[in-house]
């Protein structure tokens, strides 16, 4: 082969070298190891040290896990089984305590015959959350709802739910699945009704109370419509006044009378009976759902131009943030009794929920204020230039962007708050980490057990908190607009 344009070539490559694989150092496993673990003497040393630590931990704890006993009725029995199976002196975990007492870790001292009620409430939580958390993707919504429906119904069957309620549960899930396919916004109606339903199912009592509370709201919105014809300012305030008046003066008696006429009551359960993860999740969910709106309002108030509004918000936020949560809980348990008239008993779980909510709301307000501050002034000015009033500007322009920026902070606050629910141990409520474990240990069969409950409870906390964290990352990805 010669080049027609030039003279004879000094050197002409006659054949192509075959492609060679890259040198072993630059490929695959070896390259990865070289780059990530052994790139230099210091890093190599650190890697070896790390591996040694991992090995040490594994070596230390593996036998303990491997010698787990799941079937025993007391700690001495556990020890006997371990000694018989793995020889005298062998250590081993006694997870039998979880097997024996799992119900108390999950439900506290809730009456065992009624376990299906909190379980149903937990399952329906996903229906209530679906249109809020999974509104973007129909696919994910379908998966979440279907999983929740199947798991809940199976659990309900296992817990001997009365057939009527099993039917109700199946019906709600079926309708929710259908509605979620086409008209998911309709599910928001269920989400709004869910808190009342949840409270009723967990604490029991007469359903007439729920109806009367709804009736109060109904009268309130009626007042809103009527007064709204006169003046928009009057509408809001009269709606609130009418609702409160109905609640205070009419609802109680009406509910009692209605209950006497036709009973819609289910067995009442005292707050003292509520414990374990039922308590932690109840406080957590209630605190999370209430602290977010409250936090938004506080953040807006703090940035408000109105002196009184902003200083009140500052005082509230700084006071709550300056006080440890435990102090607030003690106030809820003990000091409130001095201020309330003697003889009134104000549900301890409710008191704790209020305090936890206020605490989380103060932190939430600061997180959201960070989001508001991060928004360029141009956005505010653009909203003004469009002629939007304050609330419209916040709702349509400012908050969607500010909240998106704050997602990691908001979810961090949620996670922190959920873990803080274990602090209610200090006011004598049976949260799963300390008091349930102490109560279990106070029975002579399980006295002396220590790590196993911690591991079990820690694992469940991890699952819940990790899910929240993954959800927030998913949300951040979905909301990514790459416009900055």
């Amino acid at each position: 082969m010669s080049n027609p344009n030039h003279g004879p070539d000094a050197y002409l490559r006659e054949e192509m070298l075959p492609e060679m694989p890259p040198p072993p150092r630059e490929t695959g496993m070896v390259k990865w190891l070289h780059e990530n673990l052994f790139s230099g003497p210091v890093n190599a040393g650190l890697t070896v040290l790390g591996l040694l630590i991992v090995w040490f931990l594994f070596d230390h704890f593996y036998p303990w896990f491997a010698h787990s006993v799941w079937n025993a009725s007391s700690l001495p029995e556990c020890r006997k089984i371990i000694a018989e199976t793995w020889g005298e002196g062998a250590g081993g975990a006694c997870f039998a305590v979880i097997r024996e007492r799992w119900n108390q870790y999950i439900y506290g001292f809730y009456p065992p015959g009624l376990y299906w009620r909190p379980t149903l409430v937990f399952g329906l939580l996903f229906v209530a959350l679906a249109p809020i958390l999974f509104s973007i993707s129909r696919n994910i919504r379908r998966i979440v709802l279907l999983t929740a429906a199947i798991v809940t119904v199976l659990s309900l069957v296992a817990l001997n739910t009365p057939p009527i309620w099993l039917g109700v549960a199946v019906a709600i899930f079926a309708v929710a699945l259908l509605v979620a396919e086409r008209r998911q916004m309709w599910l928001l109606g269920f989400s709004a009704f869910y808190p009342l339903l949840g409270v009723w199912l967990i604490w029991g009592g007469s359903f007439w109370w729920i109806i009367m509370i709804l009736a109060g709201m109904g009268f309130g919105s009626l007042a809103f419509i009527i007064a709204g014809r006169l003046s928009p300012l009057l509408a809001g305030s009269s709606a609130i006044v009418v609702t409160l008046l109905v609640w205070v003066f009419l609802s109680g008696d009406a509910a009692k009378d209605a209950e006497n006429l036709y009973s819609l009551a289910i067995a009442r359960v005292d707050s003292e009976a509520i414990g374990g993860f039922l308590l932690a999740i109840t406080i957590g969910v209630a605190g999370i759902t209430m602290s977010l709106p409250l936090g938004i309002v506080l953040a807006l108030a703090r940035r408000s131009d109105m002196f009184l509004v902003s200083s009140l918000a500052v005082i509230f936020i700084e006071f709550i943030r300056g006080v440890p949560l435990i102090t607030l809980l003690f106030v809820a348990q003990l000091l409130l009794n001095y201020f309330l008239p003697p003889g009134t008993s104000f549900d301890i779980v409710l008191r704790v929920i209020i305090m936890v909510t206020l605490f989380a709301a103060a932190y939430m307000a600061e997180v959201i204020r960070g989001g508001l501050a991060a928004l360029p002034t141009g956005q505010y000015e653009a909203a003004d230039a469009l002629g939007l009033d304050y609330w419209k500007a916040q709702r349509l322009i400012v908050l969607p962007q500010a909240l998106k920026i704050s997602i990691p902070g908001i979810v961090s606050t949620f996670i922190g708050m959920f873990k803080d629910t274990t602090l209610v141990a200090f006011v004598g409520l049976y949260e799963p980490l300390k008091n349930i474990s102490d109560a279990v240990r106070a029975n002579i069969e399980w006295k002396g057990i220590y790590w196993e409950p911690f591991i079990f409870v820690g694992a469940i906390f991890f699952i819940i908190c990790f899910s929240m964290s993954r959800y927030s990352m998913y949300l951040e990805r979905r909301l990514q607009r790459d416009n900055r």
Partner: protein
Amino acid sequence: MKRTVFWGALAVTAMTAGAAAADTLSEVKNRGELNCGVNPGLVGFAAPDANGNWAGFDVDLCKAVAAAVLGDPGKVKYVPLTGQTRFTGLSSGEVDLLARNSTWSFSRDTDLKLDFAGVNYYDGQGFMVRKDLGVTSTKELDGATICIQTGTTTELNLADYFKANGMEYQPVNIDSNAEGEQQYMAGACDAYTTDISGLAATRAAFADPENHVILPEVISKEPLAPAVRHGDNNWGDIVRWTLNALIAAEEYGITSKNIEELAKSSENPEVQRILGVTDDLGAMIGLDKEWAKRAIQASGNYGEIFAANVGEQTPIGLARGLNAQWTQGGLLYAQPFR
């Protein structure tokens, strides 16, 4: 330290506002339920079982009082109170009666405005050590590390005792009994100190109880007593005499088994008065004739309660010791029913 100040402040608030509930008896009757403050979990004294039913030595006193006042030992709401919140819980009206293994001491009786209704368990502080430590007396514990629960009288006793004997110690502060056991087992401390009853229960739960000894010295007096609020003397009387009825019942041989029979046939005038056969003692404290009979029926007399919860037949295996009747060389001495 800060915590102490905080609780002190709360207690002062309690004093000024405390007399809010003046007539506990009618309040309890109206409510139809006795709010009883108990330990959230102490082996033998108060613990909920797998179904949430409370049982224990202190719990049985709650039941007896409920039976005397309301006629039903089941009408008790158990309010678990932690070591830090127990006295404030009582003075704030959260509970009517505190039966929570609390030591009767001067400052609690006076400064904290509590009324102790009589001792239901005579305890004392002791030490547990590993046998291979070779220690046979607390006097040999100079320089030892000692696991001690904070916020209790045991903490103060420990300091007093070592100071009085010119010895040094290194405290390892713990928060709960379970943590103390763990620290002690892990070798974080040479000795573990708490009330002897607690030590016995702890030792019984060890995998190797034979390798641990409870030293013979008892370094403090811990009269555990049920408490009520200052200022409602009638309610205090009810609790005091309910406890006395349980103790007297053992002395006179009234048990939950033979009580009906004795009520019919006993010739002993004291027994007749206790059981309401003659004289109406109940009316003097605002109760009916058979109040004490019901209290004894609830879970038996003092001896039966002791045997069922912490006695030698239970895994805890406590001997009666100081808690025997005065006729048996113990300290239990019920005032006469007359």
